[in-house]
């Protein structure tokens, strides 16, 4: 009996796909033979829009580049503009920025929990983690005025100072989350079903990982220690005490372990930041935004987001508007060439599982 090769379109409206894109796989029986990704459902022409706005006006577009975790986009743009102009950010501003980044990382991991366990069929954990994520969003609401899109980090510093009572509230939330993490462990990582499904699936070979353009937790899950926060420390990461976890294996299990460890590190960083934050200014004010010019130049800045490195390439030609802003998120390589290489040979039911572990986020790809 010959098995016919069929084409299966997963997406764009599918709960197993992390976002709005389509993965077209050719299958024989239950096994994937080849795959190709199609995007284009979320194109909003942001880069062109940014070219038609001022340096400051475009900061409202930036957070919408990536829905699960908007803050690294804002931070990278702000750092790139500061690098071209030579603007210094005051100390306290840098500490607040790190606080926002780590909180964003935390809430994004909560969302990842839902996706990863849901794609394995374990739906309970997703409901819990999204519910707990709301407490972090409450903290964001106190600090920035918005729950999901914060629009808080802009060139020169941050927009407002910490409100009164924020530190206590944040520490209480951290305590609560740490207790919950133990529960998540019991439900997911100690669960033999998850272990059996995740080990040995979606392997990325260690010697080829960097060349394929793998970044972030998938890279660290291959045993390569690479993180922008320690390679090119920015803001105050060089003053903080944290480890970057790596696990061998290169499969979904290793990546899940990496992420579990990173959540613990995030909580620890947040506690350190709240303790050590100095007093002082938090914003180096820009002049009248309608007339603010940046001298000509270019800069390329990278930040570590939940999925990997985010790179902003900003070009200025000396006027009030950016010449070119090109954004590349981690998903640009993960969802195309890497997926094409690791999916063949996998089971259909593992496609969504692997996609979640790679952390592909379509808004970032298409901008």
């Amino acid at each position, binding site marked *: 009996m010959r098995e016919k090769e069929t084409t299966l379109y997963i997406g764009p409206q599918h709960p197993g796909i992390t976002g709005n894109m389509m993965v077209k796989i050719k299958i024989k029986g239950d096994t994937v033979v080849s795959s190709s990704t199609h995007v284009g459902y979320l194109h909003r022409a942001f880069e062109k829009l940014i070219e038609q*706005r*001022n340096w*400051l*006006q*475009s*900061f*409202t*577009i930036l957070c919408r580049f990536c829905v699960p975790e908007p803050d690294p986009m804002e931070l990278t743009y702000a750092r790139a503009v500061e690098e071209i102009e030579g603007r210094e950010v005051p100390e306290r501003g840098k500490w607040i920025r790190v606080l926002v980044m780590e909180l964003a990382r935390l809430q994004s991991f909560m969302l990842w929990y839902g996706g990863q366990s849901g794609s394995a069929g374990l739906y*309970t954990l997703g409901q*819990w983690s999204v*519910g*707990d994520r*709301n*407490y972090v969003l*409450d903290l964001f*609401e*106190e*600090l*920035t*005025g*918005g729950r999901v*899109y914060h*629009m808080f980090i802009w060139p020169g510093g941050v*927009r*407002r100072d910490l*409100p009164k009572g924020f530190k206590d509230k944040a520490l209480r939330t951290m305590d609560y989350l740490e207790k919950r993490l133990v*529960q998540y462990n*019991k*439900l997911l990582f*100690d*669960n*033999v*079903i998850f*272990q*059996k499904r995740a080990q040995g699936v979606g392997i990325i070979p260690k010697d080829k990982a960097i060349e394929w353009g793998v970044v972030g937790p998938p890279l660290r899950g291959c045993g390569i220690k690479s993180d922008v926060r320690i390679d090119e420390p920015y803001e105050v990461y060089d003053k903080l005490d944290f480890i970057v976890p790596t696990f061998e294996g290169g499969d979904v299990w290793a990546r899940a372990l990496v992420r579990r460890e990173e959540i613990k590190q995030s909580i620890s960083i947040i506690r350190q930041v709240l303790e050590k934050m100095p007093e002082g200014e938090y*914003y180096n*004010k*820009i*002049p*009248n*935004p*309608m*007339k*603010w010019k940046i001298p000509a130049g270019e800069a390329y800045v990278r930040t570590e987001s939940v999925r990997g490195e985010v790179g902003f390439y900003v070009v200025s030609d000396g006027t009030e508007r950016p010449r070119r802003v090109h954004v590349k998120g981690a998903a640009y390589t993960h969802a195309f060439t890497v997926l094409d290489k690791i999916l063949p040979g996998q089971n259909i039911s593992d496609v969504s599982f692997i996609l979640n572990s790679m952390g592909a986020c379509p808004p970032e790809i298409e901008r």
Partner: protein
Amino acid sequence: MSFFDLKGLLQPLTGIRQFGNKPHTIKFPDQTKKTADRYRGLHYNDLDVCIGCGNCSTICQNAAIDMIQLDGIEGKPGDSGLRPRVDNGRCCWCALCVEVCPTGSLNLTKDYIFVSENPDDFLWIPGVKNPEGKNNLSFTSTTETSLSMYQRVPLRELDPHDRVKSFAEVILGYNEEEARLEAQRCISCGLCTEVCPDHMHIPEYINAIAQGNDDDALRIIYDNNPFPEMCGKVCTRRCESVCALTHRGKEFDPGRDEGAVAIRFLKRYATEAYPTAEKIKEIVNPEIKEANGYKVAIIGAGPGGLTAGYYLALQGYDVTIFEARAHAGGMTFYGIPKYRFPEDSVDKQVEYMEKVGVKFKYNTKVGKDIKFEDLHAKYNAIFMSVGFQKAWNLGIENENIPGAISAVDYLGKINAGESYDVGKKVAVIGGGNVAIDGARVSARYGADVTILYRRRIEDMPADWEEIEAAQHEGVNIITQAIPTRIIKGDNGKVKAIEYLKAEMVADDKGGRPRPVAIEGSETILEVDTVIGAIGQEGDYSFIPETFQKKIQIERGRILVNEDMQTGDSKVFAGGDSVNRRADAISAIADAYKAVKAIDKMLMNK
């Protein structure tokens, strides 16, 4: 690993414990969640505080805010009359509009629920749609966090102790870097243009300076003001008093500049960048029309007359300006002291006008050296801007003896290059700019000067700048002093002045408090010179009787219609002799209007 893993099977069951937990959600609408103090909800605008500058609409990057006319809100000086309307289908609640609002009237509230079946309802006018939002403000912008720049770049001036020894120009203008920085502050709303009597194109030339195009700035200024260097140094700057930034800028600089954009000094910077008349002609390069055969006479080479001459010459008219004195400039030359407006500044502007084709006849007084009737017959139109040349009498005993002089005469003599010895002690009577000028000039001749003014310092009509500068230079100001008589010495000259002290009595009807002399409080001040500066009036003796029926004078001023035309259709008038505002920019504005009217009249014949 084997599938039968007890731990792996039982651990997940511990999740059943969660059944007893309190849910994360709350029962809406019985319970509501407390919104954060900084929540970015729907907009609220305080319609009384809002000035309709449109800055929110410009910065909104979604083009969500429109400025519209509302019923019941009229425009007035300092308020455009328009109010913002938010299109909630486009708004992303980034609150940039709140950060740049110069008055702080636009804010965000804690409300975030708005439900309607009609999509057009989502075009919201904040403040009108939700008047109760005032109590619910959450995201606001204080003067610290606002992105508007409320503080002016400070201006440098000469040290008071040094500068009182000479007539060197006191205020040292902006250099290029400071000017560009100051020009960046402007939000280009244009509220200032309404209040300027001449309606200069202020946001346009400030933006040209901010972009580094000083050439364009100069051209824009010369479009309706040919005397910008003078305005840049001594204008009364009504524009700055309605600048959008003063609403919160006054926190930083109360009673003085109040944070307004330095419109006057930027104008000065733009003109000083071109030091000679040739350079001005090269840059401005106005289009001079062909001679059209009409001749116009202008009486008085003050700012009004010079403006009229310039613009008429550009339109191709044959213009002659008749000036009674030896030098052009009018009150700006003979009245304003040289440390405020140097002579070479005047010469530069006048030289440029000569290049354009204006003809001057100095030392020619109409009524004496040439008759008014002749002018009326020979020329197709006449523009009169003769100003107020006569000072009011003080109305006290002995006011005409040697040593008592009016400020107008005194300043006129000094500025003409003559000398007048004021002795060692001087008393100046009056509280306006002319009095301060007289005082500061006397101080430069080494005298010990005292100003006597009937009311309090805050009531003085003079510029706060002038009062402060005079005080720094050692001038003594005695307020609430009403002079009664001048005491004559044995040599027939002024020996002292006697004055009564006054107390301020509140006015029953709510007007300004009045000074009432205190009986028996006579004080004697020994002085060598008394300078009177309590006001001026016009001298219309040059108008012959035959014309006085048509050219009517009411309460000291020439009557004109809105085209600056007097009762005689060939004769136009403007300046101090016509308007009540008594500053140079008003004279320039009147002349500009008159030029348009003369052009219309002659070209349409």
